[in-house]
């Protein structure tokens, strides 16, 4: 974690052409950027490619970063955009990749939800449930509910309308809730 004033100094220096300053920004944010890329793509190789592409794009468009947001937030937006491009490029010819419909097999809810509800366990289960969401639903809920990006930013980076982003967010939340805490009558009625 870098304090904002130090970050602002590094951004200003990088804009002025100081390559060490940009390298320092990369060093300070690479863990976060890689983590987001991993959550969006679901695997290490794609996460590495997306992180690298995101920094290249940031480097090329650094002049356009106005500093009214944190550098890390700006990087999240670029990373989201790169991941979206990456996934749609990879899914050419594989229609199901970006569709909203998932055909993921239902997993039996593990034992008693009450005893599974300890924070660490729940976190692991949420992570697993996220990974099983269709990529477009996963992207929206990760960017909104984990990374706290506003709807308009999410919509613009994913190339969808704001209302589509909201619809997908609500659908994603519902799928996660149904999988993690199925209500009576839901276990057999719904997949995921």
């Amino acid at each position, binding site marked *: 974690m870098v304090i904002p004033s130090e970050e602002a100094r590094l951004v200003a220096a990088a804009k002025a052409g100081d*390559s060490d300053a940009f390298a320092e920004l*990369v*060093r300070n944010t690479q*863990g976060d950027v890689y983590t987001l890329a991993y*959550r969006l793509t679901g695997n290490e190789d794609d996460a590495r490619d997306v*992180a*690298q592409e995101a920094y290249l794009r940031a480097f090329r468009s650094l002049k356009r970063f106005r500093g009214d947001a944190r550098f890390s937030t700006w990087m999240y937006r670029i990373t989201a955009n790169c991941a979206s491009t990456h996934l749609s490029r990879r899914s050419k010819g594989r229609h199901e990749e970006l569709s909203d419909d998932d055909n993921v097999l239902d997993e039996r809810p593990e034992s008693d939800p009450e005893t599974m509800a300890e924070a660490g366990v729940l976190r692991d289960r949420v992570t697993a449930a996220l990974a099983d969401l269709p990529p477009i639903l996963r992207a929206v809920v990760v960017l909104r509910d984990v990374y706290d990006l506003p709807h308009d930013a999410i919509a613009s980076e994913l190339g969808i309308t704001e209302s589509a982003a909201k619809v997908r967010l609500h659908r994603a939340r*519902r799928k996660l809730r149904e999988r993690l*805490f199925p209500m009576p009558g839901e276990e057999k009625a719904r997949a995921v």
Partner: protein
Amino acid sequence: MRSSRFFGSGGVSCDDVADALPAIVDGLEVAAIEVQRHVAACLRCQAELVQYRKVLRTLHQLRTEVLEPTPGLLPDILAALEAAGERRAIHHLLNGRRVAYVGGIAAATAAGAAGAILASRARRKVRLAS
């Protein structure tokens, strides 16, 4: 399919409320008054809302988790930036403009002897990406 169908005074069913819950759980959207009344009177929907809140809270917590990138990611990124910087510098030289030279970025890495291999790998990726 729902096991219980409770209709509150406003004629709103649990199914109707179920559609509204994912939107109102973060408090950014206000539920319609009939939905509010239903939830206030329906234990089932209250329980469901609590589950949504748990999911949301856990998602928030994921924000603090930073995964350890696979080794070599940082040198890869810096080498790719160096390559991009060189291309840009050459482009600007050809256009007769002065530009900040980014070649120093690679020197800032601790890549050391592995640099050559990493750089060639990174350049391959850059080509694919651009």
